[in-house]
């Protein structure tokens, strides 16, 4: 059985916890739900940490 290590998602528990709580805080701070949803997809689902992706999610551009 060959394992493709390169494409594994690597987010560990602490970053996951911080990111989740950060996104919850955004909702409490009345940041628009659309922005929070886009950031959630980029950070937690796609684990994509490029400036381009985060900027796109944050500013919808």
């Amino acid at each position, binding site marked *: *059985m*060959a*394992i*493709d*290590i*390169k494409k*594994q998602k*690597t*987010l*560990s528990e*602490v*970053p996951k*916890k*911080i*990111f989740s*709580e*950060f996104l919850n*805080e*955004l909702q409490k*701070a009345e*940041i628009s739900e659309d*922005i929070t949803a886009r*950031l959630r997809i980029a*950070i937690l689902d796609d*684990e994509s*940490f*490029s*400036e*381009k*992706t*985060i*900027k796109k999610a*944050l*500013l919808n551009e």
Partner: protein
Amino acid sequence: MVQARKITIKEFRGIRNLSIDFNGKNFAICGHNGTGKSGVVDALEFALTGNISRLSGKGTRVVSLKDHAPHVDSRNNPEKAEVTLEIYIPSIKKIATIVRNVKSPSSPIIAPDDLDIKKILDQVSIHPEFVLSRREIIKYVVTTPGERAEEVQALLRLSEIEDLRQILNKVANSCSKEIAPLERERDSSKIRLISALEVVDFNQKNILEVVNRRRDTLGLSPLASLTTRTSLKDGLSVVASSNQFVFSKTTALKDIARLNILISYIKSKEARDICADIEKDLLSIENNSDVLKHLTRENFLRSALLLINDDFCPVCDTELSLENLKKIVEAKLKTFEEVKSKRTAIEIKLSPLLSILDELRSLLLTVANYGTQVFPVIDTGRLRDHYKIINDRIIKIEAFIPVADTIKEIKEFSKFSNGVEIVVNSLEVFIGKLPSLTEKDNAREYLTICQERFSAFNSNSAKLAQAKSRASLSSKVYEIYSNKSTEILDNIYKEVESNFSELYRIINSHDEGEFTAQLIPSTGKLGFDVNFYGRGFFPPGAYHSEGHQDSMGLCLYLALMNHLLGNGFTLAVLDDVLMSVDSGHRREVCNLLKSKFPNTQFILTTHDRVWLTHMSTVGLISQGSSLHFRDWNVDSGPADWNKVDVWQKIYDDLDKDEVKSAAATLRDYLEFISTELCHRLRAKVEFRGDAQFQLGDLLPSAMSCFKELLIRGESIATSWKKTEEAEKIRKIKDNFNLLVTASYLEQWQINKAIHCNEWANFTKRDFIPVVDAFKSLVNFLFCNDCNGLPEVVPNRGEREVLKCNCGSMNINLKK
């Protein structure tokens, strides 16, 4: 996590073929430097992660896994370099085997094909930190706060937290940077609107008043309020115009007047002084090749960061993980902080000049257009040419790099072609002579121009508002993220700090029982101070000894791993990590590992036999859970005293008439066996502070101790009237005495001829009987059933029993 049961290493690093049974227990590998211990450590790491940190970390550019992981003789056959590791996974109670070779390090063969096993091995593969060497210990302790933060974050797999912080910060910064040029554009359009409106105070009341006055002249209904959607010329299109020109004479003259003011300012001494000051700052960069080089690199790296979105370098297309590539670039960027602050200071000075240039650019085009709208047409080509010059100037000054270009533009800032002024003046004269319009036409032109500028102003204001909103949003999001991540990380570091202090106190309870430490996180940094005997908090390297620093490193590592993996911390490979720690503290380290980490399998390597003994005495490693490499050579790899047929090697050497080599092996082996026996039998040996015991210090003591124990055992068996037992011991004793006599061991101290120092000078014929005699003697000491050496139990206090592992020998020593 996993535990190691058995490893088989083939053609890997310095090892040709070696199998070790760890049995999932703590295990120690001892051997001199260069005997192959680290090869086993590398093999464990490779089997579990597909990588070898010391072939791929910092400063390892010239070595690589593919080229240098195979044994040197198999360097062209990486497929032969293979490690097979049998593991036990406690969390799912399953056993699995991983077979990985250097040719395809990322495609191991895992059996059984089980999703649960695969999932856990995926996790293990991203945790190379289960291997800890002394080099790595130090990076947690004696290092800069910035580097420590990186190392600790990497260990705790927190790097994404810092990555996201930096990205959010960068987005917030870039959004706030967008505000300044948009503000300039908005201000420029506002000035032009005010000029057209002919108001002093720019407020709604004044604007409505002047606009409604013109609307009244034209018979248009007054505007009640002013919003961004308001059309100042609402209803105007239905009113016929008698003006032959499409602009307002008054507004045009005002624009020309404003242009002249700007030209005058640009040519003024004040502007020249400002430019000279900026030029001086720029030249200080330009003339310092290092700063200039750094600035250029900083600019390049900043652009590179924006372009990195995939797993390859945007410059050379080299494949690199996105994370690694960004880390490389960001680490380099950090070295340019000083240059960055110089650049920012100059950019602040440049900002007012850019505002003037913005307005000038806009006015040049507006005034040039007037020339094409009069009859006969006035050639305003020079104004358009100058518009292009100013446009280029703005672009170059905003770009900042190359600095030489910025200097050139600043030098040119006050220069204004006379041709431009001539055109402007002739246009002013021409427009001034145009017949005055009727009041209605004037009102019409007024409303048309004002509406045009009002729209431009609204549009620029909207753009600015949007930019401000983006900046505010991104800055708020960054602040929320920073606060939340700091709060959680602070708690994590508090836990680690407390656990670290507790572990360190256990090792140093005799003199640092009150020890405490402080882990102080700040943006991108992690300070680490330790209490020095109640005198205050200092960096670990300030007053504590190297040995204390080593144990701090180990404790910090253990505390971090505890936090990271919790119950999943089931395997740690400690590669010669405590070489600076003295023997007393090592014993405490053994106790610590045993008592605080009962569910963690430690595989330890050491070059120090005493350290190995401590591990055994304290019970960190059990009987049979150690390996002692006696030797290594490139052809055969490491050789283990317990597993190699030493006698065969000695006889092979003698067959080749290599007495010197045979004598050396015999001496080394007897030294190893004597050490083991002295330890197991609790023999009395003349103490040496340097622990450099020689064969002459050990062998006679071990043998005489064994003999005394047999005599004591026989006597006690006789006193208990265990005749059969006493007879059995007597036979052992007699046979042992015969063998000792045959080895001339009792004459060791007085007869130099039989002393090992002389062996190398023996002839083959003379040496063979010596070998035969010691072979018989040593083999006699090993149990025929369990192949173990005898041992006195317990290892402290009154001697109770002399026994072997299996109990075949079990001699009572207690009266």
